[in-house]
């Protein structure tokens, strides 16, 4: 496993950009690939579980703005979800008659309780977790930390050597 390197100096802006775009990419850039893969898989699984529960309108920039902001923090996942939602809204707007809500019900995409709570909690919490990862990647790169931390050598029973006269 790669050990912490003093020579390599990561660029904070690049780490921030990568972590925002793809969950875990910031950690991969900082030579922590196992952590990056775990973050990518977990956040992706959470977001798409939410999308599976709530359907295409889980990411809803019109009616659920705060959840939308949280969901957008998942980067590429959120953008794919937003693209799907926009396509549905555009298509429903072209249909004549009825209000938008009635059209959504008729299309079978309207989100109702309790599926909306669970779906948005999964997708939104995925985004908030990625915010934590973005912050971690940014702080590590600002501190110049690159690679896995060096293994600790715990020797609690070993007495320190007395200085020789």
């Amino acid at each position: 496993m790669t050990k912490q390197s003093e020579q390599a100096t990561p660029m904070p802006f690049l780490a921030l950009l990568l972590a925002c775009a793809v969950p875990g990419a910031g950690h991969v850039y900082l030579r922590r690939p196992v952590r990056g893969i775990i973050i990518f898989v977990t956040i992706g699984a959470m977001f798409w579980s939410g999308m599976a529960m709530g359907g295409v309108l889980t990411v809803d920039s019109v009616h659920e703005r705060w959840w939308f902001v949280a969901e957008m923090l998942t980067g590429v996942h959120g953008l794919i979800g937003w693209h799907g939602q926009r396509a549905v809204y555009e298509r429903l707007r072209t249909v004549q008659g009825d209000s938008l809500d009635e059209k959504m019900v008729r299309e079978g995409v309207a989100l109702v309780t309790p599926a909306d709570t669970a779906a948005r909690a999964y997708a939104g919490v995925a985004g908030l977790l990625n915010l934590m990862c973005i912050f971690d990647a940014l702080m590590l790169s600002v501190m110049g930390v690159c690679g896995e931390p060096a293994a600790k050598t715990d020797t609690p029973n070993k007495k320190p050597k007395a200085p020789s006269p």
Partner: protein
Amino acid sequence: MIAWALFYNPMTLGFYSELWLVFPLCAAVGLVYKTIRIHDLRRLPREILVLLIYMVVGLSVLATALWGIHEYWP
């Protein structure tokens, strides 16, 4: 609606089935949190399990307390 499609149409969830969904949510939160915090990745499974137990017990106590207030508060 012609046919149900995954990622397009919402699922039908019951209220009590929704409560079970808190376990995978807590597990995922614990997994991501411990992944960025832990020093040695070999200890990850144990740390996640401990954190998951803390979260589930804490949420259960909170839920019981709130239920008690809701039921018995004058």
